[in-house]
């Protein structure tokens, strides 16, 4: 089987418009969430949000066209691909929002001007992101778009890794995208899962804070000079409930164990773990139990959502890029805002930045629909 390397990586999120800005913000402890008010409902909705600071109107449907191409180009840049290599580059996309902001904008306009003929979901289909990515990259190869809620981008990356392992492709472009939209903001409000501040694993945690972010990874069978290796991963499904895994942690422990097996790595070899850590009562409980079921002792736990928010379908790739970039820079980020240990969970995320060494690192993602996905990478 072929090895896959993270040959190129790029990120645009609340921390910054590119990786180096994100890392600087991480090191300086600068968190950028602010309050938004959505007033298109009969009762205005106020919530915290981690937005990309592009200066545009948050719900402007044209943002994807402006923000996505530079991220794709930044991920492709280090490998210096030929035109032929770009043309043959398959794309693997993970998102939960897709182009819903455009749909919303379109429908709202129709309702305002011609309510009798207004029709929602007019421009539908899962391909808007894939089309834009292919155009930007110059690709005319296969395209795959994942829609598995918060594990979408992680699943996309895992499929790319397996495709390269088999030799189906020599390179793959993986993209995660989440941009602000009414559906996500109001949907999670209706589910009463939102908090003012996100505190993963904290006894006082009350929910998520949403965010937006776009990331891209060029996966390659050839490494660059410092490329981390994407070793393997695993995915399973827990039918306990549609909005989360069994709180007893059993399905999460199962996917962790399976991921380690697929990677040929022992639990004791994991140097640190990037948690899903959404800050909801139930996710963190299930995740903590699952981790305890496999890790004894628990490796250092890193939780990134206080830095960029919960970026939904893109979070698996956004957080991997942020985490891998920090590792490359020699550190494991602290979990901002953690204060009070929850004795029932007994998981204490890193409260101080720690030195990162070479070795294996594990990343968790879990989503609605009972989806659990774990990824294992190796830092050289």
């Amino acid at each position: 089987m072929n090895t896959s390397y993270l040959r190129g990586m790029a990120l645009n999120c609340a921390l910054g418009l590119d990786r180096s800005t994100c890392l600087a913000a991480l090191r300086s402890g600068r968190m950028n969430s602010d309050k938004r008010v959505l007033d298109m409902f009969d009762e205005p909705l106020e919530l915290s949000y981690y937005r990309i600071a592009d200066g545009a109107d948050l719900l402007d449907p044209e943002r994807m066209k402006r923000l996505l191409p530079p991220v794709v180009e930044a991920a492709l840049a280090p490998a210096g691909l030929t035109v032929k290599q770009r043309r043959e580059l398959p794309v693997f996309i993970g998102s939960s929002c897709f182009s819903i902001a455009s749909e919303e904008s379109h429908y709202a306009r129709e309702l305002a001007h011609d309510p009798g003929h207004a029709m929602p979901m007019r421009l539908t289909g899962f391909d808007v992101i894939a089309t834009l990515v292919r155009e930007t990259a110059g690709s005319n190869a296969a395209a795959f778009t994942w829609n598995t809620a918060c594990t979408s981008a992680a699943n996309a990356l895992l499929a790319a890794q397996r495709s390269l392992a088999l030799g189906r492709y020599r390179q793959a472009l993986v993209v995660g995208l989440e941009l602000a939209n009414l559906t996500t903001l109001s949907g999670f409000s209706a589910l009463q899962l939102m908090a003012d501040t996100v505190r993963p694993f904290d006894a006082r945690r009350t929910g998520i804070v949403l965010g937006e972010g776009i990331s891209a990874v060029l996966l390659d069978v050839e490494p660059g000079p410092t490329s981390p290796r994407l070793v393997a991963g695993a995915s399973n499904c827990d039918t306990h409930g549609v909005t989360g895994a069994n709180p007893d942690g059993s399905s999460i422990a199962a996917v962790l164990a399976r991921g380690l097996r697929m990677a040929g790595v022992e639990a004791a070899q994991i140097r640190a773990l990037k948690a899903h850590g959404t800050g909801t009562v139930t996710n963190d409980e299930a995740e903590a139990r699952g981790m305890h079921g496999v890790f004894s002792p628990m490796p250092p736990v890193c939780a990134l959502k206080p830095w960029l928010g919960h970026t939904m379908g893109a979070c698996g790739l956004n957080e991997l890029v942020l985490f891998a970039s920090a590792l490359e820079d020699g550190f494991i980020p602290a979990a901002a805002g953690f204060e009070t240990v929850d004795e029932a969970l007994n998981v204490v995320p890193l409260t101080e930045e720690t030195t990162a060494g070479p070795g294996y690192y594990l990343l968790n993602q879990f989503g609605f629909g009972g989806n659990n996905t774990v990824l294992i990478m190796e830092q050289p």
Partner: protein
Amino acid sequence: MDREQLTRELKVLIIEECEKDVRPEAIDNDVLLMGQDSELGLDSLDALQISLAVKKRYGKRIDGNNETRAALQSINTLADFIQR
């Protein structure tokens, strides 16, 4: 509003919102609504759906704190909450 009319309305609301296949008459006013061991076996997602419908219909907000849990215990506690 007449109490009997309200309790009947609430039963119909819960049945419709949660897509339960029972007749309103079959729901006792004091029976537990929520939880695996209850008659109706409603869960937290059902509670949210009911809360949204109650707010829309009666203008009373049920949010994710102890007040919610108390209000959604039974048809009677829900009717009490609305008529408060």
